[in-house]
């Protein structure tokens, strides 16, 4: 039949027929010729004679094409529609696609494997993309946001090491910089806000009126603050608070709300997209600096807009020069002057400042899922190659019948397109399902994460990835199998040996997969070890079974006005907490480690002479059984006594490193110290206890911060007031005790909100969220990569074995044992995998450097991880080759020789 079609086809070549119609005609006429041929043979003609005669009849003066030429069907119009553009390569693509769908339906196992593989990869890519899109691609969303800069400061060699936020006087001084068009300051504070029945602890952004002009934003309704508005008098509501508290009622304009016990007038509401500087910002409170500001209150954030044409290189020296004149304009202490002397401005693009920290992990994730996509494509390409090989003959016949190389490539790619389309749709569903889970697992500090969703950009991206996947996985096999010689394809494949020339493509794919999987495995291995190291860190306190929260009673209404009255409230409240069932101990601390850290304060000792540098230490207030509850060890002296009365003898507890900083080599007990730089001098405090150091911010700290603890009440009633500390409650029911405590607060102070509700375990997990999130996603990607890689190796070797059944049969017939055959196959697989491992190790050495900032106490080129993961990959690969090897060794020589 094929032979006859070979004869017929060229006669139609000069016509422009619809390929489908042409195929029908070829089929019909070939059948006719075949029947005629048999008839001639039956009539006694020799094969040669019969063939000659038929060839002659067919050629009869070009009759076939000449007679067909006038027919309409010989001038098939170009198909119309999007599926069939004019280009030659795309002619009949629609038909190819339909054929591909039909063909795939006949091999559901293959189709399912390929679609699932692609769906996993495309889904992962789409989900991560929608996060990257929301967080990185347009994180600010302000007009000309590339001109916005964040201005911070450093003062190397001063008391303020590292980078810090400037102070209010910097704003006043920088305001007129020529390189700046606009400048604003902002400060996030957490405070209690009340309106009607709503009482909540909220994040309030205290901002200069210029913030809105600097960012170039407009309100949704109402107006924005101006320089004429008094400080603290007017607020602009965030969209979400306006909806939650006022149900979106425009009549809110002109109303007053209570913030930090002060009445403020609502003048405007921002649109839902404005969430500066953080998602949580509930309102923007107008703030104006007095020209007679006390300098040195660092911690005010500055954001500026560069003047048109100006750049950061111009701005930095200008700001540096302006800052040097700060002490002369605003005065300040000697310590302040020293800081300014060494001060250097730090100017970054606002975008980098806001999302710089999460940029790298996110791009790493994007790269990771990209690798998974590459592996998936390699896998599908591999499957398609195997399929294409089994259709070599078909392809050769098609070429012989006059199909161009492009047409063959097209029909081969059609299958990949169908697979990728199905994979894309399934991947989209997968992304849609997994994105919320991913967002929930992500660390809180990723800005704009809430905006991540499967939107039109994600859809486009998904479609794009699917197209890339189709091309990647389809083009290679298509090109590979469209170019071979027709004669070669038609020749019977009864060779004994393997066709080495055709294996290199698949071998290369396996090498790629193995190396990519290894890179991901090594990456996640390094992160896993970092997490383990971090978990093993002793932060100086315990995290198990500790519940913590804060509350903000209306102290004025309760008659709490000074230190002693606040202390009495706290003691009463702690007694009630301790009486709850299952509570073992209760304490309080002004600023909780891992949550709020502790404030910086300079301290003087009796050793510090006039003019000497007073060391900058951390300070907080603690009371009740704080140290016992947190498991902070007492190294000497005593805990604070229960005391609500002012006394000249109040003590201080110092941490080990604070003692070493203040009194190196001496016994700190009985030594005296006092906070320096306060407006009214504070009397000396005697050290009555020494406790173990604690890690205040996260577990990565290599050296602990020296920390001074002060009691609830100072020397006088007005020394200090501890208003809203964090309470810590030790209880085996830490995870479930919150409702009871909420009930207790309602009883004690009905209008007080309960906030910053955590377990210490939860806080510990939060500090590692960056790392855990990256590790989690990388581990998922690595697992995917490994599974896909193993399937790829398995597929390749299985196919190789099936191609070599005859050779294996001969070997076994000649006396090769089963184990020898197994070894042969496994060795073959092993060789490819080893090349992949070598390539993977090299790639990982380059790639893992990107992880450096996430790693903890594990070098980026950790030998153990590299070796361990390599061994793991080899083991998986050997396992994947064992199954085909076992099948090979169970070959029955007789059957294998006969079947060919």
């Amino acid at each position, binding site marked *: 039949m094929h032979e006859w079609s070979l004869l017929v086809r060229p006669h139609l070549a000069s016509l422009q027929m619809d390929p489908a119609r042409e195929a029908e005609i070829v089929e019909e006429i070939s059948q*006719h010729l075949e029947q005629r041929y048999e008839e001639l043979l039956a009539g006694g003609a020799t094969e040669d004679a019969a063939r000659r005669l038929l060839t002659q009849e067919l050629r009869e003066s070009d009759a076939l094409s000449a007679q067909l030429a006038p027919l309409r069907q010989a001038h098939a119009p170009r198909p119309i529609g999007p599926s069939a553009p004019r280009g030659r390569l795309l002619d009949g693509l629609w038909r190819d696609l339909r054929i591909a769908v039909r063909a795939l339906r006949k091999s559901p196992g293959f189709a399912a494997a390929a679609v699932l593989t692609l769906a996993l990869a495309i889904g992962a890519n789409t989900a991560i993309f929608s996060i990257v899109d929301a967080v990185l691609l347009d994180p600010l969303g302000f007009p000309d946001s590339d001109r916005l800069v964040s201005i911070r400061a450093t003062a190397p060699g001063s008391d303020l090491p590292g980078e810090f936020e400037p102070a209010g006087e910097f704003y006043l001084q920088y305001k007129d910089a020529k390189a700046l068009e606009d400048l604003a300051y902002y400060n996030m504070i957490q405070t209690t806000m009340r309106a009607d029945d709503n009482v909540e602890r909220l994040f309030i952004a205290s901002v200069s009126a210029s913030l809105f002009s600097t960012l170039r934003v407009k309100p949704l309704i109402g107006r924005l603050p101006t320089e004429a508005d008094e400080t603290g008098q007017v607020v602009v509501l965030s969209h979400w608070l306006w909806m939650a508290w006022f149900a979106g009622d425009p009549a809110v304009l002109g109303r007053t709300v209570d913030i930090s016990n002060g009445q403020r007038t609502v003048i405007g509401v921002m649109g839902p997209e404005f969430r500066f500087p953080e998602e949580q910002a509930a309102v923007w409170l107008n703030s104006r600096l007095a020209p007679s500001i006390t300098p040195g209150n660092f911690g005010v954030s500055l954001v500026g807009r560069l003047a048109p044409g100006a750049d950061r290189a111009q701005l930095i020296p200008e700001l540096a020069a302006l800052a040097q004149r700060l002490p002369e304009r605003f005065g300040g202490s000697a310590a302040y002057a020293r800081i300014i002397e060494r001060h250097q401005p730090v100017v970054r693009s606002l975008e980098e400042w806001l999302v710089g920290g999460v940029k790298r992990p996110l791009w790493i994730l994007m790269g990771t899922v990209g690798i998974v996509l590459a592996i998936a494509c390699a896998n599908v390409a591999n499957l398609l190659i195997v399929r294409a090989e089994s259709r070599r003959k078909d392809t050769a016949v098609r070429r012989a019948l006059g199909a161009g190389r492009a047409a063959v490539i097209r029909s081969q790619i059609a299958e990949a397109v169908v697979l990728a389309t199905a994979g894309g749709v399934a991947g989209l569903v997968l992304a849609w399902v997994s994105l919320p889970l991913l967002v929930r697992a992500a660390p809180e500090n990723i800005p704009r994460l809430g905006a991540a969703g499967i939107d039109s950009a994600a859809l486009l991206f998904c479609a794009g990835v699917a197209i890339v996947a189709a091309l990647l996985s389809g083009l290679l096999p298509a090109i590979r199998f469209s170019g071979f010689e027709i004669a070669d394809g038609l020749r019977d494949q009864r060779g004994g040996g393997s066709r080495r020339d055709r294996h290199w493509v698949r071998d290369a794919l396996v090498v790629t997969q193995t190396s990519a999987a290894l890179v991901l495995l090594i990456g996640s291995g390094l992160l896993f070890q970092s997490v383990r190291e971090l978990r093993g860190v002793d932060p100086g306190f315990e995290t198990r079974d500790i519940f913590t929260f804060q509350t903000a009673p209306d102290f004025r209404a309760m008659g709490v006005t000074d230190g002693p009255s606040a202390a009495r409230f706290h003691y009463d409240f702690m007694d009630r907490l301790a009486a709850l069932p299952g509570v073992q101990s209760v304490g309080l601390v002004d600023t909780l480690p891992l949550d709020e850290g502790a404030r910086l304060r300079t301290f003087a000792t009796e050793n510090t002479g006039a003019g000497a540098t007073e060391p900058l230490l951390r300070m907080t207030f603690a009371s009740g059984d704080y140290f016992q509850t947190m498991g902070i060890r007492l190294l000497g002296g005593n805990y604070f006594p229960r005391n609500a009365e002012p006394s000249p003898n109040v003590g201080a507890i110092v941490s080990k490193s604070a003692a070493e900083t203040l009194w190196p080599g001496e016994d700190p007990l009985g030594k005296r110290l006092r906070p320096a730089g306060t407006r009214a001098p504070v009397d000396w405090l005697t050290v009555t206890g020494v406790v173990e150091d604690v890690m205040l911010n996260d577990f990565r700290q290599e050296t602990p911060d020296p920390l001074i603890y002060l009691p609830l009440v100072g020397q006088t009633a007005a020394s200090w007031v501890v208003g809203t500390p964090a309470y810590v409650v030790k209880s085996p029911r830490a995870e479930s005790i919150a409702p009871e405590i909420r009930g207790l607060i309602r009883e004690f102070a009905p209008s007080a909100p309960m906030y910053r509700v955590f377990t210490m375990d939860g806080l510990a997990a939060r500090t590692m969220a960056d790392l855990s999130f990256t590790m989690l996603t990388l581990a998922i990607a690595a697992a995917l990569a490994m599974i896909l890689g193993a399937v790829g190796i398995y597929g390749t070797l299985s196919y190789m074995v099936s191609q070599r059944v005859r050779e294996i049969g001969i070997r076994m017939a000649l006396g090769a044992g089963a184990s020898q055959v197994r070894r042969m196959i496994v060795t073959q697989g092993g060789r490819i995998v080893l090349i992949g491992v070598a390539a993977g190790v090299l790639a990982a050495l380059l790639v893992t450097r990107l992880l450096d900032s996430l790693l903890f106490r594990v070098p980026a080129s950790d030998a153990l991880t590299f070796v361990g993961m390599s061994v793991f990959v080899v083991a998986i690969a050997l396992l994947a080759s064992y199954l085909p090897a076992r099948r090979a060794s169970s070959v029955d020589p007789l059957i294998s020789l006969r079947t060919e």
Partner: protein
Amino acid sequence: MTNIDTGMLERELKKGAAELMVLSIVEARARHGYEIGKLIESNSGGQLKFHVASLYPLLYRLEERGWLQGRWVEKPGQRRRRFYSLTKAGHAALARQRDTWKSFVHAMSLITGVGHA
């Protein structure tokens, strides 16, 4: 008809009458191309032969004209084959052509004196 004029006759007569022959052959029931060719040959006592090169273009032409309808028919254990049947328009055309042919043959016999006078 004699063998002497086969070449001329085949060309001329087929041109005019081939359509009629094919339509007549599929009038009773649908037949495939090879069968049609065979029937023309055997019914004409071997005088008329259609080669593939002229038979199929003719079939396709009649099909395009809407007189024939080709349909792939699959039978168990056999290759599918294309069967041609007469359409409604085909029946009408056949009737018309038969009339024309009859008058033509009649006229020819009158003029040439060939045939049954």
